[in-house]
C-alpha cells in the first residue's frame, strides 16, 4: 500500500477574479507505516494539499494515487464534530463496525471516558481535538491525515496530546500524513519530513529520519531541528509568482 502524489500545480480564483497559485510542484510517495510530515509556514497551501489528497478537491493539475477504497481518517484543523451528537455518538457514527474493546482503549488513551455523554459545545478545544482524533482512529484508517492537530493548544497540553498521538500511531501500518508549522512536533512525530516553501508551495527538501520515533534522544532532535532551520532560512523565499 502506497500513496503517490504528484501535484504539478493548483490555482484558485478569488472572488475578485484574480488567479492565485497555491501549489507549484509537490511530489512524494509514502508507504504504509510511514509518517510523512509537511512542514511549512502558515498559509503556504498545506491545507489545500490535504484536501486534494483526501479526494475533496479534484480541481488541480497532476495525479494522486491512493490505495483504492482506502479508509481515510481525517483530523481537521477545526475539529468538525457534529454539535448535536454526543462525543460517543460522534465517534460511533463514522465507525459502526468498531471493535468495542479497541474503542474503549481508544477513549482511555485520549482521556475521553468522562466526556462520552457531553456535547461538543461543552468541550474545550483540547478535548474537541481528542474527539476528532478518536473519530479518525476509530475507523482503523489505512490513510490518516492530521491537519495541525496541536495548533492553538498551550505547550503542556500540546506535548501531552503529541505523546498520545505517538502512542496511537505506534504499531499500526498506516500511511500517515501530518501537517504542522511547528518544527519540534514534526521532528518528534515524523519519519520523513517534507519542507515546504512559502506560497506557491514547493518541496524544498525531503529529510528522512532513520532513528525510530521512540528512540530519538534530545540531542538528535536538536540536531535535526538545527538542520531544518538552516535549510529554511538558507533558501531565499520565492515570492516572484505574485
Amino acid at each position: 500500500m502506497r500513496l503517490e502524489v504528484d501535484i504539478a500545480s493548483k490555482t484558485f480564483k478569488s472572488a475578485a477574479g484574480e488567479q492565485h497559485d497555491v501549489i507549484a510542484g509537490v511530489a512524494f510517495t509514502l508507504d504504509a507505516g510511514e509518517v510523512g510530515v509537511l512542514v511549512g509556514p502558515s498559509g503556504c497551501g498545506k491545507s489545500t494539499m490535504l484536501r486534494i489528497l483526501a479526494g475533496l478537491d479534484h480541481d488541480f493539475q497532476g495525479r494522486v494515487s491512493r490505495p483504492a477504497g482506502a479508509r481515510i481518517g481525517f483530523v481537521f484543523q477545526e475539529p468538525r464534530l457534529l454539535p448535536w451528537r454526543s462525543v460517543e455518538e460522534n465517534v460511533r457514527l463514522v465507525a459502526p463496525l468498531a471493535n468495542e474493546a479497541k474503542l474503549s482503549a481508544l477513549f482511555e488513551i485520549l482521556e475521553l471516558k468522562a466526556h462520552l455523554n457531553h456535547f461538543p459545545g461543552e468541550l474545550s478545544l483540547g478535548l474537541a481535538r481528542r474527539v476528532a482524533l478518536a473519530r479518525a482512529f476509530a475507523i482503523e484508517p489505512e490513510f490518516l491525515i492530521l491537519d495541525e492537530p496541536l495548533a492553538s493548544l498551550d505547550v503542556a497540553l500540546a506535548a501531552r496530546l503529541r505523546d498520545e498521538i505517538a502512542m496511537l500511531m505506534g504499531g499500526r501500518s498506516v500511511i500517515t500524513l501530518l501537517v504542522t508549522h511547528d518544527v519540534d512536533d514534526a521532528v518528534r512525530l515524523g519519519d520523513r519530513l517534507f519542507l515546504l516553501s512559502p506560497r506557491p508551495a514547493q518541496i524544498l527538501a525531503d529529510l528522512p529520519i532513520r532513528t525510530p520515533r521512540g528512540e530519538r534522544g534530545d540531542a538528535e532532535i536538536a540536531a535535526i531541528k538545527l538542520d531544518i532551520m538552516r535549510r529554511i532560512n538558507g533558501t531565499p523565499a520565492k515570492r516572484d509568482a505574485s
Partner: protein
Amino acid sequence: MPRLLSFAVLLATWWIGSLFAGDAKLPPPPTVLTVMIAEARSGDLFFHLGVTLARVTLAFTLAMSLGAAIGYLMGRVRLADRLGDPWLILLLNLPALVVIVLAYIWAGLTEVAAIAAIAINKLPTAVVTLREGTRALEAALDEMATVFALPRWKKFRHVILPQLSPYIAAAARSGLSLVWKIVLVAELLGRPNGIGFEIGVAFQLFDIPLLLAYSLSFAAVVLLIETLLVQPFEARLSRWRPRAA
C-alpha cells in the same frame, strides 16, 4: 403562573367590555360558556372541531413535506432555484382568497379542493424557509461526511437534518398559524361542516354567543396544540445547544 394571570386579565377585560358594549354586541363570559357547553353536549362542537382539525392536519402535512422537498432541491441545485423562483414569488404574493375561490371553481366544492387550496397557501413559505436553511448548510461538515464515507441516509439523518431542523421548526410554526387562519375561510366559502362553516352560520343569524363559543373553542385547541406538541418538539430539537443564561 404568569400565564394564568394574563388569562385572568383577558377574561376581566372581556367582562368589563361587555358591561360597556351591552349584551347584544359582546355577551359576557358566562353566556358564551353556556352556549359552549350546550354545543359540546349535543356533540356538534366536537364534530366540527374534529373536521377542521382533520383538514388542518392533512393540508399542513402535505404542504410541509412538499415544501421541504422543493425548498431543499432549490437550495442545492442552482437550476431548480432559477426555474422555481418566479413561481415562488407568484405564490407567495397570491392572496389566499384567490387560491380558495379558484380551487372551488375548478375542482368543485369538494374536500380535495379545500385541502389543496389550504396547502397551496402554506407551501411557498415552507419552500422559502427550507431553501434558506439548505443554503446555510455547513460545507465543512459536508466534507467531513464525505471523507469518512458516511452512507447517504446516515449523512442525511445525522449531518443535514439536524442543521435543517431549526428551519423546519420555523416553517412549521409559521405555517401552522397560517393554516389555522386559512382553514376557516375555506370552510366558510365552500364546506358544509367545520368551525368555519359554523361561524358563517352564526354570522348570518347574528348569533354572537354561538360565534364566540366556536371561535374560542377553536382558539383553545390551537393553544393546546402549540403548548403540548409544538413547543416540546422545539425544545427537544435544540437540547444540544448550550443554554442561554
